[in-house]
C-alpha cells in the first residue's frame, strides 16, 4: 500500500494550494464581506498576499533544489518541481502580479469592476502551475483546462460589450476544439505506453519504430492541440479576434501567461517525452514556425487596431520561440527560456501602455489613438518606445538577446535556411512596430482627448517592466546563467 500526501507532496503543492486558497477566498469575500464598490481595493490585497505566499513557497523550493539538485518529484511522479518548472513559476507569478496591478484602474474605467476577477486570475495561475510542473497526462490535462476555462470567463468579462462576448465564444469553441485534439493525442499516448506518467511514455516512445502510424497520429494530434494554445499558424485564427475583444489587461495575461505556460508544456512534451521521435515532429514544427513568422508579419502590416497588431506580432514571436525548440541543442533551449522571460516583460509593458490609453468613453485601441503621445505623456511614450524596440529585437534592449540565442542555435545545428528566414522577417517586423512609434512621436493629435488613465499600480508596473527590459538587454549575463541552469537536470 502506497502512502498518499506525504510532507514532500505538500511541499511541492504548497504554492498552488495557497493560490487556490486565496483565489477562493477572494470570491467569497467579494460576495459576503466587501459587497460595496469602494471596497474592491481590499481584494487586490488578497491577490498580493496570495502571490507573496506563493513566492515564499517557490523560494523555499528553489532553496531545496539548490541543495539537493535535480528535481523534487511528488505524488508518485505526477508533479515535479525542477529548475525548469521553477523558472516558469516565477514568470507566471510576475505576470499575474503585473496584470492585477494594471487591472484595477482599467476595470473601473470600463465599469466592470467585480471582485471575482482577481480570484479567477489566481485560479488561472493555478492551472499554469500544473502545465509547467505536471509530469502526468491527467494532471497536465486538468491543469490545462483549469487555465483555459478561467480564461474563457476572463475574456468575456466585459459582459455588456458585444465584442467581448464574441471573443469569449470564439475562444471557447476553438479552445475546446484544441483541448479535444490534445486529449485525443494524450489518450493514444496512454494506449501506447500503458501509463499516464511522462517518464514511462518517454521509454515506450523510444522503443517504437520511427514510421509508426499510431505514434504519428498521437504526435500529430498533440501537436495540433499545442500549436493552438501557443497561437502558432496555421492554428492562430482565434488569436487576433480574442486579443481584440478581450479586456486589454486580459489580452496581456493571455499573450504572456498563457503562451509561456503552453510553451512550458510544449517543451516538456516534445523535448523530453517525445525526444526520441524527433524526426516525426520536427517537420511539423518547422512548417508551423515558418508559417507563423510569415502570416504573423504580413498580417500585422495592415492592422489598424493596436491589440490586433500585437496579436499578429505574438503569432510571429511564437514562430521564433518554436525555432529554438527545433534547433533543440543547449543554446536553443536556453534561447527559448530567455526569449520567454524577455517576452514577458516587453509584451506586458506594451499592453500596459495600451491599457493606460483606455479612458472613459474612449476605447483607445486604434493606432491613431497613439498620436501625439510624446507631447501628452512623454513617460508613457518613451517606455513604449523601449518596449517596441525590444519587440523588434533591436539592441541594447532585451529583445535582441532573445533572438540572438535562437539564431545562434539555428546556425550551430545547421538550420541555415531557417536562420536567414528569421532574420529577414525580423527586418519586416521593424516596419509595423515603427508605425506605432511614428504615431507617437511624429504625428499630432487631431482633437483634444482626456489625460491618460494611470494609477500608482500601473506606474510601478510600467517602471518594473521597462527597467527589466533594459537591464536584460544591457547586462544579460545573470539571466543567461539562470536560463542555462533551468533546463539542465
Amino acid at each position: 500500500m502506497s502512502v498518499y500526501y506525504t510532507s514532500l507532496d505538500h511541499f511541492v503543492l504548497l504554492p498552488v494550494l495557497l493560490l487556490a486558497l486565496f483565489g477562493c477566498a477572494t470570491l467569497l469575500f467579494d460576495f459576503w464581506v466587501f459587497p460595496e464598490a469602494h471596497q474592491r481595493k481590499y481584494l487586490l490585497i488578497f491577490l498580493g498576499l496570495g502571490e507573496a505566499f506563493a513566492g515564499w513557497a517557490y523560494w523555499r523550493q528553489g532553496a531545496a533544489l539548490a541543495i539537493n539538485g535535480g528535481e523534487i518529484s511528488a505524488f508518485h511522479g505526477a508533479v515535479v518541481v525542477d529548475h525548469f518548472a521553477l523558472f516558469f513559476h516565477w514568470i507566471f507569478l510576475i505576470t499575474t502580479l503585473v496584470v492585477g496591478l494594471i487591472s484595477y484602474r482599467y476595470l473601473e474605467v470600463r465599469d466592470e469592476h467585480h471582485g471575482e476577477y482577481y480570484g479567477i486570475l489566481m485560479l488561472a495561475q493555478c492551472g499554469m502551475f500544473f502545465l509547467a510542473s505536471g509530469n502526468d497526462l491527467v494532471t497536465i490535462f486538468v491543469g490545462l483546462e483549469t487555465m483555459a476555462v478561467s480564461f474563457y470567463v476572463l475574456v468575456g468579462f466585459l459582459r455588456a460589450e458585444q465584442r467581448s462576448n464574441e471573443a469569449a465564444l470564439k475562444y471557447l469553441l476553438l479552445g475546446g476544439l484544441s483541448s479535444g485534439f490534445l486529449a485525443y493525442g494524450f489518450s493514444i499516448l496512454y494506449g501506447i505506453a500503458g501509463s499516464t506518467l511522462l517518464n514511462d511514455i518517454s521509454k515506450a516512445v523510444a522503443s517504437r519504430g520511427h514510421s509508426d502510424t499510431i505514434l504519428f497520429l498521437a504526435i500529430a494530434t498533440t501537436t495540433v492541440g499545442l500549436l493552438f494554445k501557443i497561437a502558432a499558424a496555421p492554428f492562430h485564427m482565434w488569436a487576433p479576434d480574442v486579443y481584440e475583444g478581450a479586456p486589454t489587461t486580459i489580452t496581456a495575461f493571455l499573450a504572456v501567461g498563457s503562451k509561456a505556460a503552453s510553451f512550458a508544456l510544449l517543451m516538456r512534451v516534445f523535448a523530453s517525452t517525445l525526444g526520441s521521435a524527433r524526426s516525426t515532429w520536427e517537420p511539423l514544427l518547422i512548417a508551423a514556425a515558418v508559417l507563423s513568422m510569415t502570416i504573423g508579419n504580413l498580417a500585422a502590416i495592415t492592422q489598424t487596431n493596436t491589440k490586433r497588431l500585437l496579436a499578429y506580432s505574438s503569432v510571429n514571436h511564437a514562430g521564433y520561440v518554436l525555432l529554438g525548440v527545433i534547433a533543440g541543442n543547449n543554446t536553443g533551449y536556453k534561447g527559448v527560456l530567455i526569449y520567454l522571460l524577455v517576452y514577458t516583460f516587453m509584451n506586458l509593458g506594451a499592453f500596459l501602455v495600451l491599457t493606460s490609453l483606455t479612458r472613459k468613453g474612449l476605447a483607445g485601441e486604434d493606432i491613431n489613438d497613439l498620436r501625439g503621445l510624446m507631447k501628452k505623456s512623454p513617460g508613457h511614450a518613451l517606455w513604449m518606445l523601449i518596449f517596441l524596440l525590444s519587440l523588434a529585437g533591436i539592441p541594447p534592449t532585451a529583445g535582441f538577446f532573445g533572438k540572438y540565442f535562437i539564431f545562434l542555435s539555428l546556425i550551430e545545428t545547421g538550420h541555415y535556411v531557417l536562420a536567414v528566414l528569421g532574420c529577414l522577417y525580423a527586418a519586416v517586423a521593424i516596419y509595423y512596430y515603427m508605425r506605432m512609434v511614428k504615431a507617437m512621436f511624429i504625428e499630432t493629435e487631431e482633437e483634444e482627448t482626456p489625460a491618460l488613465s494611470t494609477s500608482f499600480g500601473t506606474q510601478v508596473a510600467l517602471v518594473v517592466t521597462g527597467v527589466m527590459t533594459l537591464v536584460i538587454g544591457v547586462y544579460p549575463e545573470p539571466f543567461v546563467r539562470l536560463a542555462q541552469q533551468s533546463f539542465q537536470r
Partner: protein
Amino acid sequence: MLHPITTEHYLVLSAALLLIGTVGILLRRNAVVVMMSLELILNAVNINLVAFGKHLQQLNGQVFAIFIITVAVAEAAVGLGILIAVFRNKETVLVDEIDLLKW
C-alpha cells in the same frame, strides 16, 4: 457469424467520432450544436481511454475518462453562460451572424 468486438473496433469508432465532431465544429452554424460537437470530441477521447484501459487491464484509463467528463462539464457550463451573454446582447446564436471581429 458475428465477430467479437476488439479494441480496434473501439479505436475506429472513436476516430470516427473525432472526425464527426471536428466537421461539426467547423461547419455547423448554431453555436449550441457546435458545443455538442465539442462534447462529441471529448467522448471520442473517453472511448479511446476506456478501450485502452480494458485492453491493458488497468484502471488508469477509466480514471482519466472520469476527469475528462468533469472537465467537459465545466467547459459546457461556462460555454452556456457565455452563450447566454451573447444572446442577451445580440439575440442570435448563429455563429456566422456573430461577426463583429474580423479584419
